[in-house]
């Protein structure tokens, strides 16, 4: 099993090296092939893992010469998240192969090797981060994803994307100070970097370490006060945003926080308080920032910030003893990844066909391109949590968990209600945009739109299906 996990991590890295060594036209095929290979490995891992009765396997023995390198843990949570990040990686790779073309109305481009190499490295690093069982491993992959995200956000090589990319890199790097601190403290006290050692720390030190990890998590997941990099990062090519800012990079934060909570045993309540209060603050902030946005991608960025806040809220509530909230949060990582990727890819498809993603000039999407119209609606409903779409089920679990612990902590009850209100309000806001853009006669811009390439349609189709299915997959898997 660990060999399969390792293969999932290393295959994309190998692919990146090959991409760097091959001529540019081959890069696209190599990129897709290796992303596919990685998915095959991780699905294989999931199958073997499920067949074996989902045993938690953690080993620190992967030899590199005569020395040991990084430990890995395979358990229900890591396999689920790994499948999501690798599968979406492949979907984005398939989509990008056609998106980066001379026909793209907004950004005509040939899809340089740089994109493919860094995308593959990113997939590998994400898989590594998901499977690693040590704080130092988290730190290493955290930093690698940071460097890759810089290269991908700045892909268009203009001053503005570079500035945004630098902002993303610097802010997340500052936040990584938390992981440095956590790793050093854990190591100095226990002599190991293993996450499992968290449980054995004395309470005071455990609080410090968990808070340090929480700070790093906020940075990567663009929560207050580290949120400002994400909206600017929308300068990235849209498939990059779809992958980094929906499925993978922003999930690094919530994931490392979730893993440390899982490993920490008895968690001091202060972590729960800090986490849930900051989450609700971020929720409110993110919602307020919806209002002035006209660019679809920037709207999505703020939406991502609030959805991640839900996940933090769920994780923080679990500190007070709600298993339901924890599972809801993990399921939301999975569901939100597919739904938000769909939304970003719809935005990218609009750029591709119509040359803009400014909401006010888009009208009659459904009439011109049914798949885009349906995708837009489904994504909006899934994000805002309307049944039967995936977002509903995971958010429901988080809220249910909130009411469960709210029964004994009135303040938590208040926080949960605030979050619930935000959910309703954001539903109304998205509905407004859906109503304006999707139905009706095509606007001038939309009427002039070009048809979508087949590969992009295929990816959108798969993701539309996933917005319904993903929550059942997650629920079934987490049991």
């Amino acid at each position: 099993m660990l060999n399969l996990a390792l293969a999932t991590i290393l295959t994309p890295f190998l692919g990146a090296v090959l991409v760097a060594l091959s001529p540019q036209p081959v890069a696209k095929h190599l990129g897709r092939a290796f992303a596919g290979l990685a998915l095959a490995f991780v699905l294989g891992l999931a199958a073997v893992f499920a067949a074996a009765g989902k045993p938690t396997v953690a080993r620190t023995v992967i030899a590199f010469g005569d020395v040991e390198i990084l430990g890995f843990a395979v358990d229900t949570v890591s396999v689920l998240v790994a499948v999501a990040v690798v599968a979406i990686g492949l979907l984005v790779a398939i989509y990008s192969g056609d998106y980066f073309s001379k026909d793209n109305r907004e950004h005509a481009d040939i899809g340089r090797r740089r994109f493919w190499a860094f995308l593959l490295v990113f997939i590998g690093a994400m898989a590594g981060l998901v499977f690693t069982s040590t704080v130092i491993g988290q730190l290493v992959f955290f930093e690698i994803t940071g460097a890759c995200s810089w290269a991908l956000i700045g892909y268009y090589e203009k001053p503005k994307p570079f500035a945004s990319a630098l902002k993303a890199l610097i802010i997340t790097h500052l936040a990584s100070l938390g992981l440095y601190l956590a790793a050093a403290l854990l190591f100095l006290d226990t002599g190991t970097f293993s996450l499992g050692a968290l449980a054995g720390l004395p309470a005071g030190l455990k609080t410090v370490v968990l808070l340090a990890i929480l700070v790093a998590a906020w940075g990567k997941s663009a929560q207050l006060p580290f949120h400002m990099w994400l909206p600017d990062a929308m300068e990235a090519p849209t498939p990059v945003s779809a992958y980094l800012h929906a499925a993978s990079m922003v999930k690094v934060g919530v994931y490392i926080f979730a893993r440390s909570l899982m490993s920490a045993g008895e968690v001091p309540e202060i972590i729960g308080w800090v986490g849930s209060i900051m989450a609700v603050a971020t929720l409110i902030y993110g919602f307020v920032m919806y209002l002035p946005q006209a660019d679809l991608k920037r709207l999505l960025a703020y939406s991502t910030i609030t959805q991640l806040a839900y996940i933090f809220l769920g994780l923080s509530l679990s500190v007070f003893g709600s298993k339901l909230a924890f599972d809801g949060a993990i399921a939301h990582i999975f569901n939100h990844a597919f739904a938000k990727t769909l939304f970003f890819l719809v935005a990218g498809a609009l750029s591709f066909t119509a040359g803009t993603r400014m909401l006010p000039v888009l009208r009659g999407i459904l009439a011109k391109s049914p798949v885009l119209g349906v995708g837009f609606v489904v994504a909006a409903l899934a994000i805002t949590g309307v049944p039967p779409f995936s977002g509903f089920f995971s958010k429901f679990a988080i809220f249910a968990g909130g009411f469960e612990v709210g029964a004994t902590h009135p303040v938590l009850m208040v926080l949960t209600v605030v979050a619930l209100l935000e959910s309703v309000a954001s539903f109304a806001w998205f509905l407004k945009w859906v109503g304006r853009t999707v139905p009706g006669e095509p606007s001038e811009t939309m009427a002039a739109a070009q048809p979508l390439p087949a590969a992009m349609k295929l990816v959108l189709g798969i993701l539309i299906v996933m917005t319904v299915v993903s929550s059942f997959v997650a629920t079934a898997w987490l049991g």
Partner: protein
Amino acid sequence: MVPSVLPLLALAVPLVAAIGIALLPARDGTTRRTETLHLGAIAALSAVVLALVVEVARGTDVSALGGWLYVDPLAAVFVALIGLIGLLTGLYAWGYVRHDLEHGEIGPRGHKIFHVFFHLFLFTMLLVVTSNNIVMMWVAVEATTLGSAFLVGLYGKRPSLEAAWKYVIIGTVGVAFGLYGTVLTYADGASVLADHEGAILWTNLAAHASALDPMLVKIAFVFVLIGFGTKAGLFPMHAWLPDAHSEAPSPVSALLSAVLLKCALFVVIRYLILTTRAVGADFPQILLMILGFASVAVASFLLYVQKDLKRKLAYSSVEHIGLIALALGFGGPLGIGAAILHAVNHSLAKALIFCGSGNVLMKYGTRDLGEVKGLLRVAPASGVMMMIGSLALAGFPPFNLFVSEFLILGAGIASGHWVVTGLVVLLLTVTVAAFVQIVSGSVLGKAPERIGVGDVGWRALAPMGVLVALVVVMGVAVPRPVARLIEDATAVVVGADRATPIAAPWQKAEPIARLAAPAAPRS
């Protein structure tokens, strides 16, 4: 201590090479012969250095000339660095200097001067790190300045002459402080040790350090730190460094930054050992921490604002030397080990990126970052390697500086210096921004029309490829023999027995735990 001919051989090879090249006539027809001699000499030197280092790594400290030369594991680390970086920059210089010659930057005379002084420079640096005689050590440090001054001023243009002048005047004045410190130490030793002759040998001084006059030891250490710290490029004595590094031919910049600074640090470490044994660790550690932190703080901002590629890299050297000094200041087996590992790692990465800056110069004819654009498009291999070098120096995994920086920060926390460690991490973020600027501004982007597509020759690329490989290997897992040598070197400094391990944080978690623990006293 076992007498051996190897240290003498290591010194003889570059010296003979320098003399041999000096004797060749400087005409257009003889440049190939000079190159042959040059290549032969660096190959021979690396063979001798390898033999010497292996000998020491096996556990025997070797000496020569009646104890005047002495190579213990600490010295061996630095000997190995000089041999390795000398070999690779020497190979790089093969293509680079030939390019300069073909483009009229230098004449056959300059070509010859370069090669003579290149080997002389290697000789003087080797003399520094193999000296056991503290006065000879000082003489050798002074000689490195004199040996490299003409290399810095090789192009004979206004800025390079200015740089050379500043370098020599600040270098000699700084090292005059070093002389004073040396004289004080010797005089102190001579009045305590029965044997006057013996007081000049570092090994004897170290063995009787506790008998030295504490006041004099402290004064001497201050002088030594100012003196050799100047040479190492610590703030505020670093003023010569950006000028000299940026004006020197790129292979020399690489040597200066990767090896020369480390040689000066080596001398500081030797005195650190004496001082620690004589008056305890607190006094020297505080001084090193102050200078180290100040260097990191000032250099990270100056690094950020530079517009000239090589000046940027030069300030990065100040910063990393500061980090090493800081790690020495944190002390303990972890701090010392991290410092030595960082010295090695920084050498590899800095040599790589200075060679990369040489490729930029060959391609664009300028170091102005405003004009260098799109390196990746016109010279893909150079571009990728510059990118790797930049990321490595910014401290990203999976490259080597991440490992040692992590250990340094760990040492900071282990020694209880929370605030300093935290501030350093913040300052390192500024560095990240600075290096990312290099990549986004110059490696990526559209190349100017006038620059044709096509990489520089394999002679320049091959040694860089080796450096990239080393940067990655040291970043993924420190190879056992290297780790052992650094552990032994650490043991020399902290005075424990030779078993304190050094490794990347994910290598064998258990032995590093021992590294963080207080060292067992030498039995």
